[in-house]
């Protein structure tokens, strides 16, 4: 299977390169430390850091794999399909991809609302794009369900409570590989 065709960078003829005294991409860890200090939080947030990283190889060709999508977006309150928890605080959920095609709710999450929007589902939950790859045989299938995980300040809740529940749903659905998209 050929690799995805490499798109060309568009710069309108301007040279994007040069010299800088700082990295070009944003450091959200650095920015948020100053930002929340200005909000009156004296202790910087303790971000997750790990030196060791596990690596699981593909169990079979991707063209035979079922792909499961994971998002931090949720259904709008009051519009949850049957089986998706409505109670707050948020809990992990599994829902049919077909039920998300009109978009999910994420206005409560921290993203750049001044510069973009999330009205196009495939910019943050690429169900349609993955279904196209499924139709072309690039992947075996997109799982009928996708999986939502609450954004949480607590590492422990994500690690001990939420992640195992989503793993359990993925195994029940026969998911072979996970495609995760944070907002």
């Amino acid at each position: 299977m050929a690799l995805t065709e490499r798109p060309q960078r568009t710069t309108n003829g301007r040279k994007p390169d040069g010299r800088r005294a700082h990295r070009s991409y944003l450091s959200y860890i650095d920015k948020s430390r100053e930002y929340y200090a200005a909000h009156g939080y004296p202790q910087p947030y303790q971000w997750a850091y790990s030196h060791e990283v596990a690596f699981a190889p593909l169990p079979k060709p991707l063209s035979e794999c079922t792909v499961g999508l994971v998002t931090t977006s949720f259904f709008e309150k009051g519009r949850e399909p049957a089986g998706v928890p409505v109670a707050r605080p948020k809990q992990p959920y599994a829902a049919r991809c077909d039920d998300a095609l009109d978009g999910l709710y994420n206005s409560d999450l921290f993203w750049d609302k001044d510069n973009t929007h999330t009205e196009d589902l495939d910019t943050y939950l690429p169900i349609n794009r993955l279904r196209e790859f499924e139709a072309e045989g690039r992947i075996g299938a997109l799982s009928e369900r996708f999986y939502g995980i609450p954004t949480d300040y607590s590492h422990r809740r994500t690690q001990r409570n939420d992640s195992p529940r989503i793993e359990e749903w993925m195994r029940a659905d026969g998911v072979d590989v996970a495609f995760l998209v944070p907002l």
Partner: protein
Amino acid sequence: MCHQTIGLIARHLEEAGIPTVVAGSARDIVEECGVARFVFTDFPLGNPTGKPGDVDMQRAIVGTALDLLERAWLPRTTVQTPFVWDADDNDGWRDHFMRVDDSNRDALAAAGEARRRDQAAAKADGRARTS
């Protein structure tokens, strides 16, 4: 914070034997957390799999993530897609986001006070997560 949550669950799944790929726009948070495969697109937070309405770009980013699932042989493999958010002024959105300066310092302090009141109220009436 979304990027950290996703990084942590990606690590869990990978340790459980399920291969993962993360497509995101907060590079430092994902790389510090440490994941197996990461497709980085240097965009404002909100559209990690492509600009709104740009199907070709979305397809290229998702396709790159699929390529990475097949091709990576070591953890911590990051691939950056070639897309630029604003070819005429690509520092504007970066400078604006979470900006702190004399023009907004008082407003941010007031917002922090309001947020702490809301959080205390949420904890009192059970809306905050406690488990």
